[in-house]
């Protein structure tokens, strides 16, 4: 049995302007100790997918359907009390902005201890020792002295380490990281990523890594989900995705990565804006921005279907296989030219 199996997840929000369908028909599985990367632009539904699994969307205006089976039990229909025991215990989460994700009026130690005491029946002294142990594990210098400091006394990178410590403190089976490095500068990003990799080896947790950075995905993920406008457009193992990407949106994402060797004035970009989820375009949602657009794309939405010769590599595009292979090969040739 998979650790987490998400089937046909839909989430929509009622807003004053109408219903926003933020996630439509997302399915994936996460196995023990594996890392799933979810990639996409801002507002494509990648964060909402995970917040839905965690039951952290605002209840007032959210409607969700589908299944999210955690060790066989559906998280979406679980009683709030049961879900709360899983949240922070078996599944924990790291958020994008470490500057605002910690409570400013409580000490770091108190916030870590709170996380332990919510899930374990131990004394405060034991909890505090565990908090110190984790602060050391995530590389906070002089952890004994800093455990009683307040969040504002930490830098952004250090706060994200504290968040990671808090997420790992109960030995979770799954860690959901929602753009954990986006708000940090590049050197700190690299440190946090290698820290997460090391901790994954030590703690054996599975990870869902939400990011808009393909570099991060290549670094850390085993499987990848590419999302665009609430849909999954491509889903594959990380080597397959980078080796033979099948969707024009994935090509666009890869093409827009900065290259060290090629001397270009400007980075290539995907033209246009991500569509509004209030009134998504007809047919394929990517067609207004797609350089390969055909008549059929404007009227008929493609299904998420297996690629020829690779049933585990799913993609959502009308283009014929020959064109896809050719474009993927072109993209790969550029990458290989740099590497070689």
């Amino acid at each position: 049995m998979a650790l987490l199996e998400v089937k046909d997840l839909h989430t929509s929000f009622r807003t004053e302007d109408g219903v926003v369908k933020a996630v439509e028909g997302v399915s994936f599985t996460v196995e023990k100790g594996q890392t799933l990367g979810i990639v996409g632009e801002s507002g494509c539904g990648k964060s909402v997918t995970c917040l839905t699994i965690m039951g952290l969307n605002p209840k007032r205006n959210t409607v969700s359907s589908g299944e999210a089976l955690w060790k066989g039990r559906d998280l979406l229909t679980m009683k709030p009390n049961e879900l709360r025991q899983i949240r922070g215990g078996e599944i924990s989460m790291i958020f994008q902005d470490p500057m605002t994700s910690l409570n400013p009026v409580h000490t770091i130690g108190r916030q870590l201890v709170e996380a332990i005491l919510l899930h374990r029946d131990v004394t405060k002294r034991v909890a505090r020792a565990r908090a110190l142990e984790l602060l050391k594990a995530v590389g906070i210098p002089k952890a004994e002295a800093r455990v009683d400091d307040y969040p504002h006394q930490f830098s952004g990178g250090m706060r994200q380490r504290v968040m990671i410590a808090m997420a790992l403190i109960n030995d979770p089976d799954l860690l959901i990281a929602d753009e954990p490095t986006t708000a940090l500068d590049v050197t700190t990003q690299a440190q946090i990523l290698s820290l997460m990799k090391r901790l994954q080896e030590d703690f054996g947790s599975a990870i869902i890594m939400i990011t808009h950075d393909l570099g991060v995905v290549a670094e850390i993920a085993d499987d990848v989900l590419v999302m665009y406008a609430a849909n999954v457009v491509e889903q594959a193992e990380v080597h397959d995705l980078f080796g033979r990407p099948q969707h024009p949106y994935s090509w666009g994402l890869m093409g827009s990565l900065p290259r060290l060797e090629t001397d270009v004035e400007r980075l290539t970009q995907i033209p246009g804006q991500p569509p509004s989820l209030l009134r998504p375009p007809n047919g394929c949602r990517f067609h207004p921005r797609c350089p390969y657009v055909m008549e059929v794309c404007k009227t008929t939405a493609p299904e998420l279907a297996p690629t020829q010769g690779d049933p585990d590599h799913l993609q959502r595009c009308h283009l014929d296989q020959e064109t896809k292979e050719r474009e993927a090969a072109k993209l790969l040739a550029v990458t290989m030219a740099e590497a070689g």
Partner: protein
Amino acid sequence: MFRYLVRRILWAMFLFIVITFVTFVIFYIGPNDPARAVCGGEQARRDCLVTATEKLGLDKPMPVQYYRFLKKLVVHQDLGTSFATSQSVNARIKEAAPVTASLVFGGAVLWMIIGLSVGIFSALKPRSLIDRMAMVFVLIGVSAHPVWIGLIFEYVFGVKLGWTPIAGYANFFGAATDTGQPGGPWQWFYHLILPWITFAILFAALYVRMIRANVMETLNEDFVRTARAKGAPERQVLLSHVLRNALLPVVTMLGMDIGIALGGAIFTESVYNLPGLGQTAIIGISNQDLAIVQGVIVFATLAIIVFNLIVDLLYAWIDPRIRLT
């Protein structure tokens, strides 16, 4: 911390001198003759006026008078004597301050109870029936004048229903006085019920809105989501994470409002005939009694300065991000 206190106290002294000086100037610009007030108004006898003018020091230039006032206050902590009644101003303030303090602190407790309960509930269930009813209450509370509310209450609860006294005050300590004023804790409470409600309505309305807005804003903070993601139950999220942060600005407001109100809740005191600082000031002004007016202003200024200082120290204590330097 020490340097901070020294700086604050120096500021307070400067503020104090400016306020009292301005009061002096305003009093002298106006067409006032306190001596005439002392001698019985329009029919005052000439020799009485001369004696009174000399006795009150009104023949001296204004800066000299101000200097005398300040010297007496600083050296002897003496606010002088009333022009109109020759009563010691210190004694008058001592009588009036507890009345106003009873009204203000009791009122503050009441408006905080209403503000917290209704405000928090409204924030948790926005657009619910209770939230909408609270909105109506806020509109009434902000729009209705305390004098009007006071008169309505007096008529309905005091005259028609007879549940409460119509007006007047009773001392908390001691028995009934020979002037017919009742005394004791129960009478004190009984006489203050209507004034408390009247005084608290405006503030309760403002605080309901403020607390509602702060709690709703804090509920959307990232650290509240973190707390939920940890698996904290809603009650713990609300108490330990939301309220602690949402109520920080409320502490500031409360301290400042109490400080200002201690200067005299003029409308409420007038309607219910409470012999507090507000009423004392009004009588002083209509009698052209500078000593009394100045006395109330000195007290009010001190109250505001002291409460602002308390707020700042308290704020530094409850919000770790603030350091007093």
